[in-house]
């Protein structure tokens, strides 16, 4: 980008630039912030899934395998492991899109700081959602390596698990951040967590195939992004599933992410450009 020297001001000298687009600069903010503060999150992001995995595999898994033999043709640990990644993606993304987003509007006011520079509300949305996706993918890479070490991956497609996790995360982050942009206080977050996130976690086929559920509940679950995320992760890890069904799951997550992003841009603009 070139800066024209302006004859009507005393200053206006050309500024040196790197040449990054505005949303990428805003994304850098998230990465740089993370690089300065990541130590505090290591436990929840990386250690937690490993603990879960150990508990599920050694505890529940042993019990299930002793009674039922296998689930969908694989040991219980192999069945549940990829689902835990999708679940982690949901949890991280939901958290990231509630309190931190509200804080950037209301308490640290860092969104207001950003828009006093060449950054626009749309840049902020793209940067935030990209960062959530990257963050989830980073956790996904670690987690996939752990799964490999546990020996529960059955397909080379498992290399795509971090991408599937990122998409699952995005399908939560975008609509939730759009909602947060309309809020003045965090009161509803905890309700959403208890009545939304936790039931999704219990009924989306993480711990058992949804064929175990009554018919009406199976229909409801079709509208839950985590169900689709779990299905894709399981397909990649186990090498099961058909392309058509996988395309259906992908389409759902992409559509929700896209719609959420549009709403997010609209709501960020409404809140900041007043």
């Amino acid at each position, binding site marked *: 980008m070139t800066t024209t020297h302006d004859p009507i001001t005393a*200053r206006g000298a050309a500024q040196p630039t790197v040449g990054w687009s505005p949303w990428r*600069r805003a994304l850098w903010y998230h990465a740089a912030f993370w690089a300065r503060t990541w130590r505090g999150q290591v436990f929840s992001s990386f250690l937690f899934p490993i603990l879960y995995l150990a508990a599920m595999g050694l505890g529940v898994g042993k019990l299930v395998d002793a009674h039922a033999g296998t689930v969908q043709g694989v040991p219980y640990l192999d069945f549940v492991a990829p689902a835990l990644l999708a679940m982690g993606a949901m949890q991280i993304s939901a958290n990231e899109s509630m309190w931190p987003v509200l804080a950037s509007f209301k308490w640290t*006011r*860092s969104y207001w700081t950003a828009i006093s520079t*060449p950054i*626009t509300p749309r840049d902020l949305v793209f940067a935030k959602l990209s960062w959530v996706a990257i963050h989830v993918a980073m956790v996904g890479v670690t987690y996939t390596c752990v799964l490999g070490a546990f020996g529960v991956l059955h397909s080379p497609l498992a290399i795509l698990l971090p991408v599937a996790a990122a998409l699952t995360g995005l399908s939560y982050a975008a609509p939730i951040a759009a909602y947060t942009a309309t809020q003045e206080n965090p009161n509803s977050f905890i309700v959403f967590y208890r009545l939304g996130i936790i039931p999704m976690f219990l009924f989306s086929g993480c711990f058992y195939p949804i064929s175990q559920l009554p018919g009406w509940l199976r229909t409801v679950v079709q509208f839950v992004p985590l169900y689709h995320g779990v299905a894709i992760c399981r397909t990649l890890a186990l090498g099961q599933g058909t392309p058509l069904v996988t395309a259906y799951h992908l389409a759902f997550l992409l559509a929700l992410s896209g719609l959420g992003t549009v709403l997010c841009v609209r709501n960020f603009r409404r809140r900041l450009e007043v």
Partner: protein
Amino acid sequence: MAQVGIPGNATALVAARGLVKRFGEFTAVDGIDFEINAGESFGFLGPNGAGKTSTMKMISCISPPTAGELTVLGMDPKRHGPRIRARLGLVPQEDALELELSAMDNLIMYGRYFDLPRAEIKRRALSLLEFTQLSDRANDKADNLSGGMKRRLTIARSLISEPDVLILDEPTTGLDPQARHLVWERLYRLKSEGVTLVITTHYMDEAEQLCDRLVVMDRGKIVAHGTPRQLIERHSTREVLELRFGLNGHGPHAESVAELAVRVEELPDRLLLYVDDGDEVLAAVHAKGLTPESALVRRSTLEDVFLRLTGRTLVD
């Protein structure tokens, strides 16, 4: 680049005509006109709620005007917001620093929004921290800085892009006198370096210290404009005699001193007599047999101008 379309004044950095800002039914800014020239220090003086911050946000190209014309640096904020903002420095009313990060990192993070190279930001940051007398606190968390230091860090932050126009919304509200004077001194230096300053304040002494020209705002309208000197000459007398009558109040005395002054203002705790020669009038007050508990002769200030124009005081 397009020049500002004002005949005979091609140098206006900011020009507004009939500028309006409404929030639903509420009109915050009610059709104001002004021009800010390169290199000057321009003030918006008025009480809280006068529409100053809304005006600032429109000039900063953050908040779109509801109606009227606005050009900033010769451009239309609606179409060139990011391009204009690349050349503005904004010191908002609330510092909004990243409290978790060091002073230095605050400057680096902000500088990156302008796409400046890291090495360049570091170089500028070091000299700005020195300019704002924060060099020895560069690696301290922003959270650990005092109020005055946070304010100075916010000013340093706004200067990282070497802006043509520095916009300051209430730069010293909430600071102790020593911290205020330090901020003023730094702003004065920037001005002498050719930076155009746009300042809102509800402190008349700040406006007198810093502003070459100013407009007085009240309830969304501009009620007067000029240099501080012009405003005082036009709307007040040379001197003011302040009389306090203690606990019994000045009620009964207001009328008897009225004939001695050009104008008398009654404040809750004192009477203000607008006069040309304060000492002479004080003698006349004593000659009438009145014995005020205390009497003070002072020069007229912008506070008196505001009182005259609106019937209210600036700070309440």
